[in-house]
C-alpha cells in the first residue's frame, strides 16, 4: 500500500504497488466507516493481498487479506514513519506508468519496509540504501568507485550529481562536491548492501551521505519529494548508531 486519499463521505482512493501489474489506483468503498472490515488493512505500508474488479475509470476493491501489517510497526516510531513515507513516495514516483510491471521495485520496497519494521538497521540508513538502489533499478545507478564519465578506476575525490557519481581529476567539472572517503565508502556499502560497513559508519558520514543521496534523488526525479524535508533524523540515540 503506497497511499490513500479521501473520496466522498466514506470512501478512499488507494494506490498500490503490485508484483505483477505495477502501480494501480483503485476505489475502496466505505473503508472510512468504523464498521468497515477492510479499512484497517488498507493503510499505507501494509503488505496485502488485494482482489480488484474493473471499474469505469478506476478499479474497485472487493477483498483484502493482510500478508504483513507493516504499517502498525512503523507508525509507532516517528523517525521510521517519516523515513518510510519517503520510500513510499519514491516508489510511486519511480513507477510513473500505471500497470507497467516493476518486479524489482516491488521487491526492493517490500524488503526495505520489512527491514525498517524489524529494526534491522537505523531508519535513515535503510532509507538511503533504498533510494540508491531504487534509482539504480530505474536506470540512474550512481558510480562510487570508477569515474562516472571516463571509467578510470578509483578511488576519486570529487562527486558530481549531474555526471552520476565520482569523477577523476581530468573529468571533474567545476562545482563538484568533495565528500570524505569514509562517506564515499558508506555510499558504496549502501548501494551494494554491505550492512556491516554501513552500520559502523559514524554520524558525520551518515549525515553527509544522506545529503548527497537526497541531492542525487532530487536531480533525477525532477519535481522534489514532499516528504523528504520532513524526515525525522533524531534517531541517533538508537543502539544501531555506535560511533557518535
Amino acid at each position: 500500500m503506497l497511499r490513500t486519499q479521501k473520496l466522498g463521505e466514506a470512501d478512499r482512493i488507494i494506490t498500490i504497488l503490485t508484483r505483477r501489474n505495477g502501480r494501480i489506483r483503485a476505489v475502496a468503498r466505505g473503508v472510512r466507516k468504523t464498521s468497515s472490515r477492510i479499512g484497517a488493512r488498507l493503510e499505507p505500508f501494509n503488505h496485502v493481498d488485494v482482489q480488484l474488479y474493473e471499474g469505469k475509470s478506476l478499479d474497485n476493491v472487493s477483498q483484502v487479506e493482510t500478508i504483513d501489517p507493516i504499517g502498525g510497526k512503523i507508525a509507532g516510531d516517528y523517525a521510521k514513519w517519516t523515513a518510510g513515507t519517503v520510500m513510499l513516495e519514491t516508489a510511486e514516483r519511480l513507477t510513473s506508468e500505471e500497470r507497467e510491471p516493476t518486479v524489482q521495485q516491488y521487491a526492493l520496497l517490500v524488503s526495505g519496509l520489512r527491514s525498517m519494521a524489524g529494526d534491522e538497521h537505523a531508519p535513515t540508513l535503510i532509507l538511503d540504501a533504498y533510494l540508491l538502489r531504487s534509482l539504480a533499478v530505474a536506470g540512474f545507478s550512481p558510480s562510487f568507485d570508477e569515474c562516472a564519465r571516463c571509467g578510470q578506476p578509483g578511488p576519486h575525490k570529487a562527486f558530481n550529481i549531474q555526471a552520476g557519481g565520482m569523477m577523476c581529476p581530468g573529468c571533474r567539472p567545476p562545482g563538484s562536491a568533495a565528500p570524505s572517503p569514509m562517506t564515499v565508502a558508506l555510499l558504496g556499502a549502501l548501494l551494494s548492501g554491505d550492512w556491516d560497513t554501513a552500520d559502523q559508519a559514524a554520524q558525520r558520514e551518515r549525515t553527509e551521505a544522506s545529503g548527497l543521496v537526497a541531492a542525487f534523488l532530487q536531480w533525477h526525479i525532477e519535481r522534489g519529494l514532499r516528504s523528504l524535508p520532513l524526515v525525522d533524523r533524531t534517531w541517533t540515540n538508537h543502539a544501531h548508531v555506535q560511533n557518535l
Partner: protein
Amino acid sequence: MYEGAVQELIDELGRLPGVGPKSAQRIAFHLLAADQADVQRLVDALHHVKERVSFCQTCGNIAESEQCRICTDPKRDASVLCVVEEPKDVVAIERTREFRGRYHVLGGSINPIEGVGPEDLRIRELLGRLSDGSILEVILATDPNLEGEATATYLARTISPLGVSVSRLASGLPVGGDLEYADEVTLGRAFEGRRRIESG
C-alpha cells in the same frame, strides 16, 4: 446546459463536497420551485455563517466569538485537554457525554506525502497552552488511522518531557458487533488494550 442563472447555480452547487452534477441539478430546481421566504432563510444562513463563525483563539474549534463555548464554560475541567484533528471530532466526543475537559483542535494530522508537517498544525499553540502547568493530562484523540497514530506518537514524544500525563484513546471492538466479524488489526489492538475485570 441551462440558461445563465440556473446553470450558474448548478455549477456552484456542484462544487460542494458530495454533490455531483445530478444532485446539483435537483437542488437547483428545488430552490427554483421553493417559496421566496424559504430561499431567503437559506441565503441568510449562508451569510451569517461566513460573517459570524470563526475559529476559537484558544482551542481552534468553531466559535461565534473570540473563544468557543467550551473554552469559556467554567464547569469544564481545565486540567484535562483532549487533542483532536478537526472541529467535527469535538462534536463526536461531546455526543458521548463522557468527557468534561477541554479541547485542542490541531487542524489535521501530520501527512508527509501531502507535505503536511508538524509546523503546519496547531502544535505550537498546544505547547503554549501546556506551558503554564495548569493542564495535568492530555488525551490524544487523533483518528485511528496511520497518520493519526503517527501524529499521536509525535505529540507524545513532544509533550511527555513537559511532565504532563499523556494518554491515547483505546482502539478495539465496536459495541454491539460479533467477534468473528472483526478484522485482525482491530482484534489485535483489542488484545493489546485489554483491561482487567475486578471480581464483583
